[in-house]
């Protein structure tokens, strides 16, 4: 019996060692990516990447997600595309003329071909744009075209599609009429919803268009040469592309990998050249020479419902906005290149006619300051005649949102005496619903830009705007936004100043409590060069990428 027992314990010991090995994972080996050094990087122009999901769509009028947009930006091309500096550079367009009032653009198209040999014509644009706005298409990004004359009317079914302000003068000339002379129209054209589609081909394919690699035609730097659903897809250089001499990569292999740890393991075994990291991997790799971070112009903030008696009080809002340590939040919880934000319009997103970044104009507003926050809070409590306040924070079920929710609760309850925060965690869709019905008190929210202009952030909070959802209304702010969208379009500096002023009003009244600007961390092999990350629209361009 003794012997049996000892064997039993020996087995237990083995088992505990197996289990302990799970824990050992993190602690024992800080030796990432040394293997990479010994292997000579292939000079072959093949890039191996991972993608986080199957491509949801190849139909430019229907796509809504970053995976689709990323593929589209590399296999299709609009009139313009974003260059290495994120400025619009001619794509299918060769040149353009604009009328004096800035409302009529006439584009001259270059000699470019679809991958089936058909020429890209002005009609391809007319067809695709009408399709996107046709209410029967149900395009979720149709609104991004609303600056075109009659676009909104077409999309809401008030006028027929042929009334849309876009026409093909001849095969190579496209005329676009705008509702307002917006200054950012060219960069808007780089967005996939504005890409062309070949009418004849799309109609031939019918329901199958965009569903397979060989039921789609391409006009971009690459073609989709292979698509194994849910598994992998492959881009090959498009020899027919008008600027094929610039494109150096021959092949880009994408494998679909949803698990971050798996991605890291694939990177370690040289199966992937670039891989995104989540917070738990950042510590392990932050000293690696291939570790990189980027900051995106996506702002996360706390929305405050002013239908709530407490949050209607400006001092209470200021107290909340200044009452939590944003630097600690980005350093300890996110830890991935995210930046503490004391603003609405993100840093490094837009420059004004004076060449200054938007952030240089207004600087930091609502910076963390525990003492100031407490003062505002005491003031608010006095005005409200309350000693104890309970607020509910509407949150959703993503990993980082959960952690940040906990952090906010702890910080605000510590810094603002008498405040209790209850966290209400909901599925993301439910959170959106509750916000739009204004059934929340505080809510964890984010916003990314739709086009390269500060207006994409500034006009969020106009009175009764669809995205306002705070109940805030300010006549001066409304007027500034309206002017910037209409009368000031002829004076871009004045327009810029108006937007700067609008942001100041918004944050002086602490309508929102800015938290952070999103960042992301990734590993990229040293032989990978020239992948361009775009801060808005599609995330990446591989047109200029190469292997060294």
């Amino acid at each position, binding site marked *: 019996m003794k012997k049996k027992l000892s064997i039993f314990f020996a087995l237990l010991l083995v*088992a505990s060692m197996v289990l302990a090995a799970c824990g050992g994972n993190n602690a024992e080996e800080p030796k990432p990516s040394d293997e990479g050094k010994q292997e000579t990087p292939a000079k072959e122009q093949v890039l191996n990447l991972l993608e986080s999901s199957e491509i949801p769509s190849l139909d430019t009028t229907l796509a809504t997600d970053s995976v689709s947009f990323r593929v589209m930006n590399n296999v299709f091309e609009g009139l313009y595309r974003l260059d290495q500096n994120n400025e619009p550079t001619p794509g299918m367009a060769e040149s353009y003329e604009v009328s004096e009032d800035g409302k009529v653009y006439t584009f001259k198209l270059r000699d470019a071909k679809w991958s089936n040999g058909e020429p890209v014509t002005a009609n391809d644009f007319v067809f695709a744009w009408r399709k996107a706005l046709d209410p029967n298409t149900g395009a979720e990004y*149709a609104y991004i075209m609303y600056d075109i004359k009659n676009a909104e009317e077409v*999309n809401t079914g008030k006028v027929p599609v042929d009334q849309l302000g876009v026409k093909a003068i001849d095969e190579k000339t496209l005329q676009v009429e705008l509702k307002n002379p917006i200054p950012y129209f060219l960069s808007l054209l780089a967005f996939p919803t504005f890409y062309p589609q070949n009418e004849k081909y799309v109609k031939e394919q019918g329901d199958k268009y965009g569903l397979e690699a060989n039921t789609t035609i391409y006009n971009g730097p690459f073609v989709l040469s292979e698509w194994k659903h849910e*598994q992998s897809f492959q881009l090959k250089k498009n020899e027919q592309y008008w600027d094929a001499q610039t494109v150096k990569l021959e092949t880009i292999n994408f*494998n679909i990998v949803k698990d971050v740890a798996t991605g890291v393991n*694939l990177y*370690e075994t040289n199966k992937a050249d670039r891989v995104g990291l989540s917070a738990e991997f950042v510590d392990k790799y932050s000293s690696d020479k291939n570790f990189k971070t980027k900051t995106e112009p996506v702002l996360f903030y706390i929305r405050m419902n002013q239908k709530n008696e407490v949050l209607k009080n400006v001092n209470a809002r200021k107290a909340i906005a200044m009452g939590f340590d944003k630097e600690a939040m980005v350093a300890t919880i996110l830890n991935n290149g995210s930046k503490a934000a004391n603003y609405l319009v993100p840093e490094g997103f837009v420059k004004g006619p004076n060449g200054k970044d938007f952030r240089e104009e207004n600087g930091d507003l609502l910076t963390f300051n525990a003492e100031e926050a407490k003062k505002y809070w005491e003031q608010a409590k006095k005005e409200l005649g309350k000693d104890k306040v309970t607020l509910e924070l509407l949150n959703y079920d993503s990993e980082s949102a959960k952690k940040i929710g906990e952090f906010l609760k702890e910080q605000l309850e510590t810094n603002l005496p008498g405040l209790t925060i209850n966290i209400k965690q909901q599925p993301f869709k439910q959170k959106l619903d509750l916000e739009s019905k204004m059934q929340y008190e505080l809510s964890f929210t984010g916003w990314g830009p739709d086009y390269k202009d500060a207006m994409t952030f500034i006009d969020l909070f106009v009175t009764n705007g669809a995205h306002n959802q705070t109940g805030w209304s300010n006549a001066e702010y409304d007027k500034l936004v309206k002017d910037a969208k209409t009368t000031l379009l002829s004076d871009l500096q004045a327009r810029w100043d108006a937007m700067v002023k609008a942001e100041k009003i918004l944050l002086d009244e602490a309508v929102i409590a800015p938290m952070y600007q999103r960042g992301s961390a990734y590993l990229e092999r040293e032989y990978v060069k020239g992948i361009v990350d775009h801060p808005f629209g599609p995330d990446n361009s591989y047109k200029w990428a190469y292997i060294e």
Partner: protein
Amino acid sequence: MARYTLQRLIYMIITLFIIATATFFLMKLLPGSPLQNQEKLSPEQQKIILEKYGLNDPVPVQYVRYLGNLVKGDLGVSFQYDNRPVTQLIGDRIGPSAQLGFQALVFGTIVGILLGVIAAVRHNTAVDYGATVLAVLGISIPSFVFGGLLQYYIGVKLKLLPVAFWDGFEYTIMPTLALSVFVIASIARFMRTEMLEVLGSDYILTARAKGISGFGVIFKHGLRNAMIPIITILGPMAVNLMTGTLVIEQIFAVPGLGEQFVRSINLNDYPVIMGTTIFYSALFIFVIFIVDVLYGLIDPRIRLAGGKK
């Protein structure tokens, strides 16, 4: 037998109909809309798009329309994968899931039975304890931990097998192992218990008395009777395994069906929720039917009710 089968078939269709109906109405209680870009759209814009998909109609109208299409075999098109038919979506993904599930099931069953039998025969010895410890570990270690460990040590450290992807048999080995751990453990436990009971029964004693070899007794007389509860758990387990497992498929980047169900619920992709539910239920009901038939084949004492009339 034919009448019984027909009867069962009708019950199966009714069950499926009830499941489809319940799922449809429960699904409509999910908050939010199926729009992917919901946070950027104003209520009016959302309405325009939902109109196109007939989602502004009253739920009963949508239900009747859905059933009409279902009868015609049309499961609709996905919202998240624009315009892709749900049947194709399932068809593209079921292959790898089914292959992995099948491999794990076969491997796991064989190893599990062997382990269980050995434990029962060597009852109360170190071998038995070892097998029991293994079984307990197999049931209690989550498959993602085991999968992660396999991937890290065998794939990254030892470089014996590919870390992930789906490109031939060698790519299926680690996910199969990870999946089969639970199968091995469950079956070994059942097998041990059943075998012990069977080996202690009178007819085994008779068989031994007749002078049949130990091996023959165990495999010919013992195993067959001990298999009955195994068949019971094997059916549902097969369905579970072969329709894909979220975690293992994610860890090893297997292009399977596992994630679709959860994902479609999160995204309110109604046609995919319905399609995967119906597919899963149909398979489940069918397997239960097969298990019932198998009972009769394995154990003559169990005969299908109604068959003799």
